[in-house]
């Protein structure tokens, strides 16, 4: 699903050059649920941004769903983001003056769907996350957990191939975190690939695979507690791609 080979990302200013990703190589199979951990500033979010085509990388090769996205123009990158990728953010990133329905509808506008199609998809997504009764509420009228579920509904409405979640439980208490993880697991079970950045080792272990990024490189990869997806030996393939030093623990 995601194949990165020697991807590097360098941020340059007049006085300093920061290597956020260094020769980063990773292979993520379809339907996989991968948790990403690492210390602050290690390059996790940069990896997620590059993976989500939110940021261009400096060198290397990146295949998303089999397509080389290294040198795409903005229109094409935007289209792929819209059609194949769903984003979930730590701070939910709902638009404050739109109600939940309108928030979930936002990406569908850029897809060119008719209003009937949009309505169908928004309703289905909100139903799936259990917010069908709250669609007229604005974000500030909802709890943190509900807001994150609304953000998940927004990510789901476009039926993406992969969901990129940047600390989706970072602003939630333990109970709500558990509920969000249950929801993500359920989404993954239905076939959507998930990459999730987290600082919580317990949540990381609920994934198929848990990889660690340190100083912009893949420092380790091991299997999580979640049963591996049916298609092939995902963990084994990933370890092979990660290179020497990676460890594996079969669930």
């Amino acid at each position: 699903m995601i194949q990165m080979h020697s991807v590097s990302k360098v941020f340059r200013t007049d006085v300093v050059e920061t290597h956020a990703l260094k020769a980063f190589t990773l292979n993520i199979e379809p339907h996989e649920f991968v948790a990403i951990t690492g210390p602050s500033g290690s390059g996790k979010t940069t990896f997620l941004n590059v993976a989500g085509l939110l940021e261009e990388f400096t060198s290397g090769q990146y295949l998303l769903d089999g397509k080389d996205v290294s040198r795409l123009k903005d229109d094409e990158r935007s289209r792929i983001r819209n059609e194949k990728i769903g984003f979930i953010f730590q701070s939910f990133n709902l638009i404050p003056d739109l109600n939940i329905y309108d928030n979930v509808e936002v990406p569908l506008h850029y897809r060119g769907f008719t209003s009937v199609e949009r309505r169908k998809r928004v309703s289905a997504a909100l139903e799936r996350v259990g917010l069908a009764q709250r669609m007229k509420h604005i974000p500030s009228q909802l709890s943190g957990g509900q807001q994150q579920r609304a953000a998940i509904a927004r990510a789901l409405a476009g039926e993406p191939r992969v969901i990129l979640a940047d600390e989706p439980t970072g602003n939630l208490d333990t109970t709500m975190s558990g509920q969000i993880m249950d929801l993500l697991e359920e989404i993954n079970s239905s076939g959507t690939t998930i990459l999730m950045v987290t600082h919580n080792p317990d949540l990381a272990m609920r994934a198929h695979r848990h990889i660690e990024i340190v100083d912009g490189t893949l420092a380790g990869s091991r299997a999580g507690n979640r049963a591996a997806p049916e298609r092939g030996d995902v963990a084994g393939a990933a370890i092979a791609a990660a290179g020497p030093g990676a460890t594996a623990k079969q669930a």
Partner: protein
Amino acid sequence: MMLKHDLRLALRSFRRNPILTALTVSAIAAGIGAAMISITLYHARAGHPIWWKEHQLFAVTLDARGSDHTGEELMRHPEYPPDQVTYRDAQALYRSDIPKHAVMMYRTARVVDPGKSGVKPFGVTARLTTADFFPMFDTPMRYGAGWGRAADTTPDPIVVLSSRLNDKLFNGANSVGRSITLNDRQFRVIGVADRWMPQPKFYDMTTGAFDVAEDLYMPFGWATELKLSPAGSINCVTPSAKVGGFDSLIDTDCVFMQYWVEIPDTAALRRYQQFVDNYTNNQKQYGRFVRPTNNRLYDVPAWLDRNDVVGDDSRIDVVLAVVFLAVCIVNTVGLMLAKFLGAAPVTGLRRALGASRKHIMHQHLVEVVLLAVIGGAVGVLLARLGLWAIKAMTYVPGPDDGPERRALADALAHMDYSMVVLAIGISILTGILAGLYPAWRIGKAAPASFLKAQ
């Protein structure tokens, strides 16, 4: 579909930032308002009173000035011949059959006796003119028609009334065939001109470029028959010429008549110019036209330009207003930049969710153009208010002012539909100019950079 969506987003953005929105609308409205006031005044002055044949009508001017004509040092364009012609030159020019139509004419004053008990006689302005005046200037007629050339020489006791005078004397009824008394002489009405107020009053601007047409029109032959003095400008252009009685006036080098010809094709125009030059060269043997030949034919736009109908002041006003509009646009660029960058995290989010750079630019341009159109509408209201104030300051209604004079004052400070359309066009252009850079700036940043700021 995206347009509808972007319009909704724009309205939402207005609600979210009412103060910034009001400031932007005010800046645009001030710029558009000032621009429209000066452009409207310019437009009224630079109008095309007879646009359909303005390049076929020519004012004829001859340089009959003596070598030491005084006062030239005070003139802005001393090289221009006098703007009127002498009686004898007009008579000579009138003999040419090259023009399709030719008119010699001047303005005079008469007294009308309404012949009704209790209604006092009153003064009117009259135009003594040859017959071609009506077909040449396409004067619209409400009733009847003008006269034929024969009536000029006889002359026939006939008149054409303005609709204004016809309203006053006959309550607007068809007065063709009825009589009026002008200075104790009976004249038969053969026609009534419809409301006609070419602005500028190009065919005779000696009493002001913006004036109402005369109250009535009389065959030119009455000029000599009744020895009617001109009620306009008289300029004696040679040292020996002096204004005395009517008989001496028509026999000296004093210019007081307007002379116009209609010549539809350039070959005929060249022949006519040659005819005029031959005439003045021939006159040199009688001691006239002592200067180098300097006879000029002006079509209507050139004639208005020659008479400085649109003065430099009007042009400078327009330039200043456009500069002010540019300042307002720059101001709007700053306001929009602040507004767009303030909402950058949401824009970054939209980018992450699939909006392309083009989508973002389009969305923000729609917002600015919508603001500009609203600003333009407010600007048009401001302009109307400003024009009303200018009219109130410059036009004081007189006791004898009829509806036409009031209409003239209105016309000079009136925004017609073409001006409103122009205002909308300028508003949209303003929006695009003001929004292009902020929209481009917000569109070009990588979405991740805004999401970090969220």
